């Protein structure tokens, strides 16, 4: 293990008063960690308004770009007709005919065009058809509505289960179907369940923003709000026929991503670049909120069916799970979202007989894409609610049934992956149960619910109120989250991270990992400084500019801390060894400046190598789906308004095993933010559609929790390290997103005795279910 740096921050001293997160290491007593950690590196700039986000940048002479979109869900594009009464000579229009390379947004499959060509098919109502650039926004605003699209409607498909176009299909099986059915036949209880989840908007507060600047040689420089500079780079090269040097992508300060800036920025960058090449001047494309919600990707809706066989004591015997996800109109990242969803669909539980069948279909709605959790929040909501329903039927505590089934070291997952280490399911469960006094609170809420039901819920009329206006409940859930890319994804990525000792004696860390609030710029230098034994402020973190940094892969899948953190440490370790070898007996920190003067620059490019003993077969879906898993438990308390069905989430105890909490304060921030997004997913965040169009595409209608709606979140970090990386970290970004929603739904059940099997569990659905329950 590298030494843990405790470098005193230089900008502003941390005070003693700052409370530290509770961090628990396996085998040790619970302890508060007292060490000081560096302050967020770009924090002072963000706090003073000095940080420059894309829309804050000034490019003299820049024009403004806008997108002309379809208003049909499915149609053939017959013509694009600019109004003949308008003088179009002062502006620039770009269509598919202007694209120099392939009319493809390069990602997984080549199905999505940058712009629908005349004669081509429009697949969703917000689909880009043409682009317009103007020297000022007033002209742009006025002319945007003067381009008419002539279309011939085609029959649309909106029902994910009715669609016959599949983007992907997987089957994960522990054995043959006969064995599965035999296991069901031997079960004491077989329970079926159907679960449904809707879209979720990432809702980064900074809208999508991109500025394209053409250079004199036909190249393009992109400045933008984005997670993955090299995704955008690849897309530019392909569609605009640019070389690696001609296309250059620079990430600017990014105001949140949550997956929403993983794939969509490629489209926006291509649009801005196409206009910029045609205008031969910089073009700004900054979405307004309405366009951002209407046109960009969302979390995949899904329908998930479970059939579960258990013994009377709660032991899982058989799981038969069917997952259907709605990919929207184009493939984007759907196959990998579905894959992660399927791999997590059984929940963190050992079960000898499992069959998971998953498919994703096409509908004529805007494409769905990456969002924090990436398929797992959908399937784990279903798995946890199913298990809670089984516990209820068997009269077992939800904690007990989880203790009985939770993975332990040595267990095998449905893909046959043997969990050899770093399994903290039982530990996070126990901590969450203990810290929330789960069992005693549950006894109390159960007693009150029994009294209430004895009185009778709304006798005679659903319009009546009961003596009590509120009901309290407590709920528990457990989750796992595979660390890094799925299957052999990391091998295919072949990431490179570099550490460089410059001739000037400066140490630079070069990766493509972007900062979007999660702390990349703070934690990666911290790891390198720890390895080199120098203060963290001596490590420069290079800009995320494709002309500067190597491709260390996308900033997604909670992979930055684990994968790129590991590469950074190994690169630093090599640098240290190389320098120290030239100065026998002297430690790195004493000699590196002298070494730079004597020997010139030294640069270590650390290439990803498969983690020892980790192998996955993409064809059969057998093997090690992930090098390691993070484990999380959450206990939520709710108050349900019995008159209105409104839910207030009071407290959430969130226990997350992250392998190593590199920077506990930032790590805790990830848990808190992910937990609130999950609470929003469970309660109020809902996209309503009509004819494939989002009805609530504004911030006044798509609501996320405010500070008054947010629960008090109590975080406990657990460290069960992964031995495949030098520091043991397994990532934290997505893990909390998987677990809080089912905990909230369990708490609602504890309060009112009703299982909400659809997310979000809105007051409308809760009240309707209460009445259906009272009438039954």
């Amino acid at each position, binding site marked *: 293990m590298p030494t843990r740096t405790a470098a005193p921050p230089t900008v502003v001293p941390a005070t003693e008063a700052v409370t530290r997160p509770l961090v628990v290491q396996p085998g040790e007593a619970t302890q508060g960690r007292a060490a000081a950690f560096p302050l967020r590196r770009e924090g002072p700039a963000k706090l003073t308004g000095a940080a420059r986000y894309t829309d804050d940048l000034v490019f003299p002479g820049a024009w403004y770009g806008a997108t002309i979109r379809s208003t049909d869900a499915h149609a053939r594009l017959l013509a694009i007709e600019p109004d003949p009464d308008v003088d179009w000579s002062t502006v620039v229009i770009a269509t598919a005919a202007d694209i120099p390379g392939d009319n493809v947004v390069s990602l997984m499959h080549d199905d999505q065009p940058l712009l629908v060509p005349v004669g081509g098919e429009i697949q969703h109502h917000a689909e880009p058809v043409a682009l317009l650039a103007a020297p000022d926004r*007033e002209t742009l605003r006025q002319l945007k509505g003067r381009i008419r699209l002539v279309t011939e409607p085609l029959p649309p498909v909106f029902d994910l289960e009715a669609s016959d176009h599949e983007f992907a299909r997987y089957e994960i099986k522990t054995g043959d179907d006969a064995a599965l059915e035999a296991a069901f036949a031997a079960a004491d209880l077989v329970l079926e369940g159907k679960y449904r989840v809707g879209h979720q908007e990432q809702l980064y507060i900074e809208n999508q923003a991109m500025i394209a600047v053409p250079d004199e040689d036909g190249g393009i420089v992109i400045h933008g709000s984005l997670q993955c500079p090299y995704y955008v780079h690849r897309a530019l090269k392909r569609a605009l026929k640019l070389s690696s040097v001609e296309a250059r992508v620079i990430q600017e300060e990014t105001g949140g991503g949550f997956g929403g800036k993983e794939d969509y920025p490629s489209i926006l960058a291509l649009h801005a670049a196409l206009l910029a090449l045609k205008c031969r001047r910089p073009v700004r494309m900054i979405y307004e909120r309405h366009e951002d919600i209407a046109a960009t990707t969302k979390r995949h809706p899904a329908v998930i069916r479970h059939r579960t066989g258990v013994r009377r004591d709660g032991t899982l015997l058989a799981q038969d799970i069917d997952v259907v996800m709605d990919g929207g109109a184009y493939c984007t990242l759907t196959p990998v979202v579905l894959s992660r969803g399927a791999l997590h669909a059984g929940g963190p539980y050992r079960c000898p007989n499992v069959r998971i069948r998953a498919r994703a279909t096409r509908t004529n709605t805007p494409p769905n894409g990456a969002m924090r959790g990436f398929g797992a929040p959908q399937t784990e909501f279903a798995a946890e609610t199913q298990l809670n329903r089984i516990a209820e039927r068997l009269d077992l505590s939800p904690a007990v049934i989880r203790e009985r089934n939770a993975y332990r070291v040595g267990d095998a997952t449905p893909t046959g992956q043997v969990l050899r280490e770093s399994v903290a399911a039982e530990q996070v469960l126990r901590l969450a149960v203990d810290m929330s006094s789960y069992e005693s609170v549950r006894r109390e809420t159960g007693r009150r619910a029994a009294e209430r039901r004895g009185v009778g819920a709304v006798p005679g009329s659903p319009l009546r109120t009961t003596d009590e206006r509120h009901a309290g409940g407590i709920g528990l859930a457990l989750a796992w989250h595979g660390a890094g890319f799925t299957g052999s994804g990391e091998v295919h990525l072949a990431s490179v991270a570099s550490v460089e000792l410059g001739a000037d004696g400066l140490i630079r860390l070069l990766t493509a990992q972007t900062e979007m609030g999660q702390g990349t710029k703070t934690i990666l230098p911290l790891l390198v400084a720890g390895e080199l034994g120098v203060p963290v402020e001596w490590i420069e973190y290079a800009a995320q500019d494709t002309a500067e940094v190597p491709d260390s892969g996308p900033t997604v899948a909670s992979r930055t801390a684990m994968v790129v953190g590991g590469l950074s440490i190994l690169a630093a370790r090599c640098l240290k060894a190389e320098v120290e070898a030239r100065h026998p007996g002297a430690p790195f920190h004493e000699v590196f400046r002298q070494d730079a003067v004597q020997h010139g620059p030294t640069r270590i490019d650390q290439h990803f190598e498969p983690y020892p003993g980790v192998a996955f077969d993409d064809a059969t879906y057998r093997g090690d789906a992930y090098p390691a898993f993070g484990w999380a438990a959450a206990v939520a308390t709710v108050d349900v308004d019995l008159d209105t069905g409104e839910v207030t989430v009071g407290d959430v105890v969130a226990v997350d095993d992250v392998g190593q909490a590199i920077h506990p304060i930032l790590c805790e921030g990830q848990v808190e933010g992910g937990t609130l997004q999950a609470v929003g997913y469970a309660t109020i965040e809902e996209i309503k559609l009509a004819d494939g169009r989002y009805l609530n595409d504004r911030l006044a209608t798509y*609501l996320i929790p405010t500070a008054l709606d947010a629960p008090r979140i109590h975080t406990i970090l657990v460290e069960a390290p992964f031995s495949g990386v030098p520091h043991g970290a397994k990532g934290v970004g997505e893990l909390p997103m998987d677990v809080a929603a089912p905990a909230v739904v369990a708490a609602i059940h504890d309060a009112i005795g009703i299982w909400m099997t659809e997310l979000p569990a809105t007051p409308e659905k809760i009240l309707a279910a209460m009445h259906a329950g009272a009438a039954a």
Partner: protein
Amino acid sequence: MPAEPPIDIPRRLFDAYELLAAGLAAGSAPVPIAGGTDLMVQITGELREPPARMLDLSRLDELRGIALDRGVLVLGARTTYTEIRRSTLCREHLPALVECAATIGAAQIQNRGTLGGNLANASPAGDTLPILLATDATILVGGQRGERRIAAGDFFTGYRQTALAPDELILHVEIPLPTGRHVRFRKVGTRRAQAISKVVMTLAWHDPRGGGAGWSDVRLALGSVAPTPIRARATERVLEGASPTPEVADRAAETLAGELSPIDDVRSTAEYRRTVAARVLHRLLREAGGW
């Protein structure tokens, strides 16, 4: 980038009247802007066409102030929700209005949004509007043709339509404060701040003899359940002369559910609105009856 329509900035009420009249004569009157919480959203052009011309009210001090005048609470049209929340007069004489103001938006909206703006915007979800209906408020409006009073009950003429003429301004709102009147307010939204109501309700009644021996002058007003804020007159008739007993509450709730015809929209469903309106009323009656 929103549109930037021309804006007139009168310094006297007299000038404002003249600008309104002149605009109307020339084709269309400028749209008055006070706190901008509704109108500045409109200039983005995403919801409705931006107004062609605006009229700034921020220099017109005649439209400000909260006063008590012979048993009538007088609130200037430019009174903000924050001013209502801080007003000792409002707190003492009409706490339901203070409670209502606290549910509108959050600090930023409360600091800017005005009572007059809530009236002029005439959204069916306007949170103060059921209070004005239930308290028999009167709206004083003025223009070059003089001043006139419009009863709150006559003010809302259709979806986002009012009895205010295009060349008139709302000057102030007069709320009578009869002794022995009780006013209760309740809003149901999607979240606890920054939420537009799914159902908003005000119930007012007189209980002259006290002890619930029989209510009089019952007013029940609701928002977000019809194209305009409305009075629920059939339900009022059930409650008039009655006492808040369980039987009366049941009957009132049933009557209200039958009387309302809300719609499904992006914020909620017709069924939810109808049911919750009835239950909120049932709860208010239960609380009033103390059972």
